[in-house]
């Protein structure tokens, strides 16, 4: 029996790539393949499911599958391995977005991209989670590629809500004013400062009581600091909620208590929170950058501009037009079906079968 073993830099349970890795292992095992996960770092709850990457012992017929999302020692290790390899590319944030804020992180990102590019010479195939990512793989020299979306179990979106958070959001709603939500790490590429600008325009033009909820921990302290000072300087301190890194229950409460999801990111390789919004029946307004148009596929209002007045007008339209809101929510539900676990697992299994068959041939 052949084996496809996965290698991952950080195997973390509350992370989309970690969850994807577990699903991939299950798909591979269902296909009758041996499959283990080898990681550089593992969160304690996943330790029973993984081993340190240095402990890998090769056997004939092994294939190695690398979950690529950042610079890592694992990639360097794989570059020296003779086994046939597959790269599952989740995108690496371009270093340019972080360079000004976190030079060291930017270096890591640049390393990550260089490593993925170097792996092109040894990998037999590149699996990309979006067409946007596939185009990058091709640009980096991958000759054989295919698109297989993230394997996401939507039931993980379906947590019990955190009652105090939901009650607080309900009280805010009762006082009037829209609740605008963004979920994602506080980082320059997520452009939370543009969300604040849009909030200011929206409050000035349409809804003086509107609020912005930013859910997600900070991955760039310098950017977070600038963002907080910007919020203070512009006088919207009381209208911007920095929720930070929250539990699944609190996260669910935000999705259920908000009126719209607004995403103005400059770079997203896939953007799972869009799917969470669809799942929770939340309409979406998003800036058409990177993989966002592809993930949305019409299940939201896409904007070509991030100018505050443009975003404000789009928010107003979505929040004041009930027919449009219903249409977007419905489109979201339909789009979500494209990412159903049954479908994505099947796509993934087909792609792996094709790669292995070609490798055997």
């Amino acid at each position, binding site marked *: 029996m052949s084996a496809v073993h996965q290698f991952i830099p950080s195997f973390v349970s509350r992370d989309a790539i970690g969850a994807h890795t577990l699903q991939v292992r299950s798909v591979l095992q269902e296909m009758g393949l041996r499959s283990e996960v080898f990681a550089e770092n593992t969160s304690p709850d996943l330790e029973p499911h993984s081993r340190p990457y240095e402990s890998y012992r090769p056997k004939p017929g092994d294939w190695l599958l690398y979950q690529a999302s950042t610079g890592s020692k694992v990639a360097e290790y794989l570059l020296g391995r003779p086994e046939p390899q597959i790269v599952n590319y989740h995108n690496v944030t371009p270093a340019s977005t972080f360079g000004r804020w976190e030079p060291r992180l930017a270096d890591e990102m640049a390393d990550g991209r260089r490593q993925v590019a170097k792996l092109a010479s040894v990998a037999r195939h590149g699996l990309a989670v979006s067409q946007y990512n596939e185009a990058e793989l091709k640009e980096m020299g991958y000759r054989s590629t295919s698109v297989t979306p993230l394997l996401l179990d939507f039931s993980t979106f379906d947590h019990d809500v955190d009652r105090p958070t939901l009650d607080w959001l309900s009280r805010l709603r009762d006082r009037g004013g829209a609740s605008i939500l963004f979920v994602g790490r506080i980082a320059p590429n997520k452009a939370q400062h543009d969300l604040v*600008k849009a909030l200011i325009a929206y409050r000035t033009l349409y809804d003086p009581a509107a609020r912005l909820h930013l859910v997600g921990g900070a991955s760039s302290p310098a950017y977070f600091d600038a963002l907080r000072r910007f919020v203070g*300087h512009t006088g919207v301190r009381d209208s911007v909620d920095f929720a930070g890194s929250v539990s699944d229950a609190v996260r669910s409460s935000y999705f259920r208590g908000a009126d719209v999801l607004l995403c103005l990111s400059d770079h997203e390789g896939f953007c799972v929170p869009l799917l969470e919004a669809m799942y929770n029946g939340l309409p979406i307004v998003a800036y058409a950058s990177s993989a966002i148009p592809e993930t949305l596929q019409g299940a939201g209002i896409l904007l070509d501009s991030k100018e505050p007045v443009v975003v404000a007008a789009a928010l*107003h339209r979505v929040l004041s037009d009930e027919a449009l809101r219903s249409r977007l929510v419905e*489109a979201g539900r339909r789009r979500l079906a494209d990412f159903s676990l049954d479908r994505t697992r099947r796509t993934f299994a087909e792609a792996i079968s094709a790669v292995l068959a070609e490798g055997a041939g």
Partner: protein
Amino acid sequence: MSDTAPSLDQVRREIDEEVRAKRASGALPPSLERELDLAFDKFAPVGALDNDFGEALKAADRAAFVNVAVPTASSKPGVSFVKRLLRKAMAWYLNYLAQQVTAFGSATVRALRALGERLGAIEAQIGEVRPAVDDGSERPPVAPDLSEWVELVVARMNGARGRVLHAECGDGAMLRALTAAGVDAYGVDPRGPLVDGAVAAGGDAWPDDPLAHLGAVADHGLGGLILSGCVDRLSLARQRSLVELAARKLAGGAPLVLIGTDPRAWERVTPALEADLAPGRPLHSATWQHLLERAGFAGVAVTDGRVEGLERVPDSAAGAAVINANLDKLGQALFGPATFAVAAVRST
């Protein structure tokens, strides 16, 4: 789902309409959007490079020292003694290595510091020769008078296929004339208060740096381009970039009109503050003509502006013909035309 809901394309068009209406109403002054950009930039660590370098050197300096005094504490009985013994026994060897590594680290930091000082000296020298940057945003907002060129510009832009950009548009007087003639025109200008005025008067104007805006426009996306104001005070390198950008952003066959100030008249007609702080100087019409032709523009034609001559004597006065002819020659020699227009068409 509601069957009566409009298509998303239709919704986007309606949002665009709403944006235009909100802008025209002045409810959100364009200068506020610019102020928000500037406010955030103020908190961004762009100017932190020098401090970072100093701090990085200090950190490297601290790390250059290799401490051979290995900690020997232990909670287990006897282990601390063994550690101390090992440290003592290996001290001769570790000291020898540590001295060399420390020497290398210290020498590297010294070399970096010397390099930093030389770089600082070069940056200081560049600062002395580099002209003061004036993007126009800090200047007193004086709307340029382009009335003399309205007729020519409208004639050239009439029938333009696609949007026509006016950079810098000032108070939007030219935009209004173009719009009245049925041309789909918009403008940019770095001076927020002027743009607010242009918007209040019904023009589609934005507070933006002309070069930056032009750089962001899609290639071959413009149906026509009018350049004025900025062309007179950009550095030579940016004036050349402007021509290259214009060639890249205009669609094939699209018209361009560049309204410049004659270098001889520039100091006479430009406010002292603006002239002194400008990073560059205006070019002669012949130079613009040359640059445009080299960038692939066709039919490049120069039109001189009015000459503000000396006052003529009445024709009835004795010798009026001779005196006036001489006054005209003198006026031409002393003043010449203050401005000129260079019109051209982007080759297909």
